[in-house]
């Protein structure tokens, strides 16, 4: 449904001017948004000679793939990529399941201490992870989870924000009567959870999954701490650890950055409608 074109007092010309101006601003803004990525992309194809020059070339005059082959020679970035993908997948599934279950229970069931527990879930999200990394690290020692994949993914298996989101969404979007009706029909709570609540909140679940994926993909300080072998590095750690000392080998750095950003871009391009809808939903229920 179209919004009203504008107060009638402006008249047709005025409304048109406003619309034109807004398009110009939007377009300019859009260019500024993608320019950094385009620049990153462009630099990654430049040979070393073309990088520290002034004025800078917008496009490489002698495009080359040497930066890309170079980073793969220097470090097993392919392996880093696979690690990132696997870890992100596991984290996403785990966050989705835990957020759904916990969110639904907080939303639709009463039990003693519910409010307090929910507060705890929210409150712990405010504390910066960097401040309790060491205690968590120490906790992992007796169970030998240092330098393991499970050690890396552990803190990312639950997302307070995900629980919060699902709770808000389920509380407002799913009428309790629906659940009651299912119960009357003899359904188990598990069935209700996965066959009634989950499908109805799939958009919110999608949003939670996306945030979880992004968070795990972008993780770097914890994986750095836990991984004692390069075989376990994810892309972000790989990039940081290979910022060669004092160096500004920007061609290779940009190539590495592109490889790290590309999967997110591809996923986004494919799922963009879904993703934006899901994010929009978080606003509605937030």
């Amino acid at each position, binding site marked *: 449904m179209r*919004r009203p074109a504008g107060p009638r007092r402006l008249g047709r010309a005025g409304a048109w001017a406003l619309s034109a101006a807004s398009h110009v601003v939007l377009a300019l803004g859009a260019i500024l948004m993608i320019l950094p*990525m385009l620049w990153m992309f462009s630099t990654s194809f430049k040979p070393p000679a073309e990088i*520290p020059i*002034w004025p800078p070339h917008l496009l490489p005059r002698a495009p080359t793939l040497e930066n890309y082959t170079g980073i793969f020679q220097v470090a097993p970035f392919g392996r880093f990529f696979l690690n990132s993908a696997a870890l992100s997948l596991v984290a996403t599934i785990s966050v989705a399941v835990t957020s759904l279950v916990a969110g639904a229970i907080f939303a639709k069931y009463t039990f003693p201490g519910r409010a307090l527990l929910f507060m*705890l879930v929210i409150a712990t999200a405010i504390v910066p992870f960097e401040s*309790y990394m060491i*205690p968590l690290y120490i906790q992992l020692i007796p169970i030998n989870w240092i330098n393991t994949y499970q050690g890396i993914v552990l803190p990312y298996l639950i997302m307070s924000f995900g629980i919060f989101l699902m709770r808000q969404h389920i509380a407002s979007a799913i009428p309790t009567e629906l659940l009651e009706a299912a119960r009357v029909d003899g359904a188990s709570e598990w069935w209700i959870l996965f066959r009634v609540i989950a499908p109805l909140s799939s958009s919110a679940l999608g949003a939670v999954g996306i945030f979880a994926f992004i968070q795990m993909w972008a993780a770097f300080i914890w994986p750095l701490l836990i991984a004692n072998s390069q075989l376990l590095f994810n892309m972000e750690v790989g990039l940081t650890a290979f910022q060669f000392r004092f160096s500004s080998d920007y061609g290779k750095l940009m190539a590495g950055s592109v490889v790290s*950003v590309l999967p997110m871009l591809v996923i986004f391009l494919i799922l963009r409608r879904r993703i934006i809808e899901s994010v929009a939903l978080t606003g509605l229920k937030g």
Partner: protein
Amino acid sequence: MPAESLAVVKRGGVVWPSRRQWRLTGFCYVALVPILALFAYIRVFPIAWSLILSFYQWDLISLHKPFVGFANYVSLTHDANFLTALKNTTIYSLATVVVSTVISLPLAMFLSGTTRVGVFYQAIYFLPVITPMVPMAIAWKWIYDYNYGILNYALSFVGVKPIPWLTSSRIALWALIIMSVWKILGYNLILFLVGIRNIPLVYLEAADLDGATSWQRFRFVTLPLLKSILLYVLVTATINSYNVFTQVYVMTLGSQSAPGNAVRVLVYDIYQNAFSYFHMGYASAEAVILTMIVLVVTAFQFGFVRGEET
């Protein structure tokens, strides 16, 4: 039939939870307990431990770890690095949140008027949000380069002399702010868009019929109805910006990078105290203070925004 009446039954004159209630509560525990156990393990225990540590002089490797009460907290109030970090983080948070909100709200207004192109724009603006921070911080470091960076190149077209974005102690923080605004703008935009789209058409049409100007319509109809979205945006942006770390870590590496104190933020200071100087207890105290500050600021925002509601 309301659920509550099924919760209890009377049996033999005593009020019991009904079988149904047992089943429901039982399910809660079975389903929730494993999740809560994991949650306790990865969040509650480490945070609690960290809180306790803040009252000790707990150096990671020293054998002597005495209880010192509030000594760490008191030392922090004299600590020049902490105070610098506090100042920088506050400026950073304020600027990032305000600027990104002030830019994204009008943009959302514009976008709400377009239809077909709208989806395309949404995607473009949201792109920076999904990119991982480390590679983009590296890319921005290159963009900000004083000698060969494309930003200074673009500015030279409008006659602006090259700006030492990252190496100047006055400008470095603003370079960081600009980058962060770029990153979160799209997210705020989408949220505001949703809020705007949800304003019932009748209110806007009523305003038009009353002869309101664009600005009046915005000020007295749109804005008040965006309250809850605005609050949500402000709170999440504030919490995230107070916890900024990755960009600072990446941008302070190397010899052409930002001077340490210019971009010293709280989490970076905590990291340095813990990992470079090994003062874990001290760093924990700092983290506690950071959390307190964020809570206070958030509470203030709630009060401020909610308070304006009639």
